[in-house]
């Protein structure tokens, strides 16, 4: 017979959580002037622009140029605000073509971008494949393709896609593309040096591109253990792109590693609507031993993951595995989540959470896919190497 997972089963967690969820009850507000919701848009020029474009699209919903324009604006907004509702609005603009097996290339590229936000990587790659064969000169398509291939750990394909970029995009973007693959395949130092040199030469153009390159450089420095350089680059990147949720998450992880919990709390306090940032804020509270503020945030996080689970999408698996492992101490459940996550995406953070969970649950066999990946990719990362060593010790201990 099959042995069940150790620790509390999922529904038990739901029961424990029920009181926290039940605390909110339907009510009639006491006063008519009570503000119930603050809307995130209105006064923002970008919002106003997209509203006007949407109005013009509604006059001619089949106008390809207007539709892709609206979709692109919404994807930008979704990216900036880390808010998936905008991706739904973008999809709505593309709805006349959405279910078409072979829509025009411009729609197909945007559809690929939206599919990957839902972690539907194979479908996204199929679209990108079609766009790059139809339009080999489409730089956007090659860069997006390289990024998805890197997430899927298909490094030879990613390298080929970056190579196609070199004649189509500027030097810094091409170099960043190649360096991000190289940093995963045993060429961390050389990739960082190359990217740093290119950055010095080409910085000062688009702030968003500079921030992206600086963020990559900061993460590479952090992996090498060069904390001073990593911190400086993170801060520079955030100065160029304040409120960028990807950068904030990466910087917070770096600070958590340094056990600078107060710095994390200050950094993330204005961004707790974003699930991944709330997770790191809660980790900092746990690290700082602030039990009083920890309890409500734990309940809130649990409720958000439960809502995601009810919805049935798997985009939060990496964060949820971390939540189970580091905040709830349910290593067995974390292993299951991290394993499911690893079948979908294979970035450093995905590898790390599976190894950590496997160590904590004493299930070295569960980590096998990551250990194999580490061998074949040749990735250099001291934290991963340390965890792999611990797992090897456990395997030996179990045999001896």
């Amino acid at each position, binding site marked *: *017979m099959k*042995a*069940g*997972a*150790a*620790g509390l*089963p999922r*529904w038990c967690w739901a*029961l424990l959580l029920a009181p926290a969820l039940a605390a*909110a009850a*339907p*009510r*009639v*507000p006491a*006063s*008519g*002037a009570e503000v*119930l*919701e603050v*809307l995130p848009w*209105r*006064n923002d020029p970008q919002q106003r622009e997209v509203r006007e474009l949407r109005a013009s699209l509604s006059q001619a919903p089949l106008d390809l140029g207007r539709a892709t324009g609206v979709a*692109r604006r919404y*994807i*930008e907004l979704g*990216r900036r*605000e*880390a808010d*998936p*509702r905008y*991706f*739904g609005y973008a*999809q709505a603009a593309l*709805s006349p073509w959405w279910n078409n097996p072979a829509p025009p290339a411009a729609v197909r590229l945007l559809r690929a971008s*939206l599919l*990957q936000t839902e*972690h539907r990587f194979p479908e996204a790659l199929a679209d990108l494949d079609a766009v790059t064969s139809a339009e080999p000169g489409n*730089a*956007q398509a090659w*860069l*997006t393709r390289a*990024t998805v291939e890197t*997430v899927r750990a298909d490094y030879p394909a990613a390298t080929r896609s970056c190579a196609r970029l070199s004649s189509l*995009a500027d030097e810094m*973007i091409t170099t960043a593309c190649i360096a991000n693959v190289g940093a995963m395949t045993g060429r961390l130092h050389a990739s960082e040096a190359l990217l740093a040199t290119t950055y010095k030469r080409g910085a000062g153009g688009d702030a*968003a591109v500079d921030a*992206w390159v600086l963020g990559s450089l900061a993460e590479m420095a952090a992996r090498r253990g060069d904390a001073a350089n990593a911190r400086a680059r993170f801060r520079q990147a955030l100065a160029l792109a304040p409120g960028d949720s*990807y950068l904030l*998450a990466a910087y917070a992880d770096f600070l958590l590693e340094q056990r600078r919990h107060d710095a994390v709390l200050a950094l993330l306090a204005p961004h707790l*609507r*974003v*699930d*991944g940032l709330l997770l790191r804020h809660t980790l900092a509270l746990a690290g700082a031993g602030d039990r009083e503020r920890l309890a409500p945030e734990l309940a809130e996080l649990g*409720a958000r993951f439960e*809502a995601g689970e*009810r*919805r*049935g999408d798997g*985009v939060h698996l990496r964060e949820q595995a971390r939540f189970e492992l580091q905040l709830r101490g349910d290593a067995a459940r974390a292993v299951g989540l991290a394993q499911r996550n690893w079948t979908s995406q294979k970035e450093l953070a995905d590898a790390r959470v599976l190894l950590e969970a496997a160590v904590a649950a004493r299930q070295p066999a569960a980590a096998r896919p990551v250990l194999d990946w580490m061998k074949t990719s040749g990735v250099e990362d001291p934290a991963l190497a340390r965890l792999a060593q611990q797992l090897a010790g456990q395997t030996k201990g*179990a045999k001896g």
Partner: protein
Amino acid sequence: MKRIWCLFCLLLAVALPASAHKPSDSYLSLQAAQGTAPLQGRWDIALRDLDYAIGLDADGDGQITWDELRRRHADIAAYALARLRIARGGQPCTLSAGSQLVDSHTDGAYTVLPFTAACPAAGALEFDYRLFADLDPQHKGLVSVEEGGAARTLVLGSGQPHARLAEGAGQGFLDFVEHGIWHIWIGYDHILFLLSLLLPAVLVWREHAWQAVAAPRAALIDVLRIVTAFTLAHSITLSLAALGVIALPSRWVESAIALSVLLAALNNLRPITHGRRWIAAFGFGLIHGFGFASVLGDLGLQKGALAASLVGFNLGVEIGQLAIVAAFLPLAWLARRSWFYRRVMMLGGSCLIMLVAAIWLGERVFDLRLLPV
């Protein structure tokens, strides 16, 4: 530079969901009564989504006040209910809105729209959900239907707007009964444990040897005691574990179950408990209950239907167990005087059970894989 900026946003969109907000969901719960009585519904819809669809922020200051919201209550009800169809037994239900309240979910404020669904017929429920399908195809409706103590859930949206829930209050309950029976049927360790205790029920240990019992009454009472004690014990621990009062690591539980099989079979070779096997059945039954609970946990309990699934699963286990007893006891009674039963079945069988149990124990303690089951 514009070209690169766009390129760049698309690229970074890949990394986004790792730290995203909650996407747009509505929460639709429905309480179904028996027969054709109206269904009671509650539909929570985010104010942000309603504002995007029909505009709630009358003064355009980026804030939605209670006054602004309640002026639009009738429009909200009309907009939402026009995009939801419920049918029962193939006949469309008439939806009518009640007066709205406000609630908070993890991503902000929601209007709470109570409604009743008057259905002309009884039968299976059907849903057709189109809310925001044209504005945000990624929007989902998280539907939960409570009927006769069992709650079932659906996720509807533009990808799958239509769903049908099969009829019957006991549907979820019966599923769990079936799971319980199935678990006993494929749970060889429970079957072997029960058989080890039942094998000597038609015998009595006298002068250092097993002799056939004369009266069927004695054998029946013995079986009754064992089965009752085992049932009582595993029901206690199954409930405690399922309610989250106690949680034990599954490897210990599985190892202890293997040990219990081993000891029960050993007792047939060298009786220690002398006709008080029901005590062993009770003691070890406590451990088997934890084993059942881990299976039940893996099945995933329906929230709000905990009691029904717990009782259903346990009932299934008892049915499976009684089937084994009913198949075994008449044969054992008829064969009890034979040399075959007393030597081959009783002693040989117990030895075999011990061997299998010992291998299980080794597997589970050292986390190995030796047997195919």
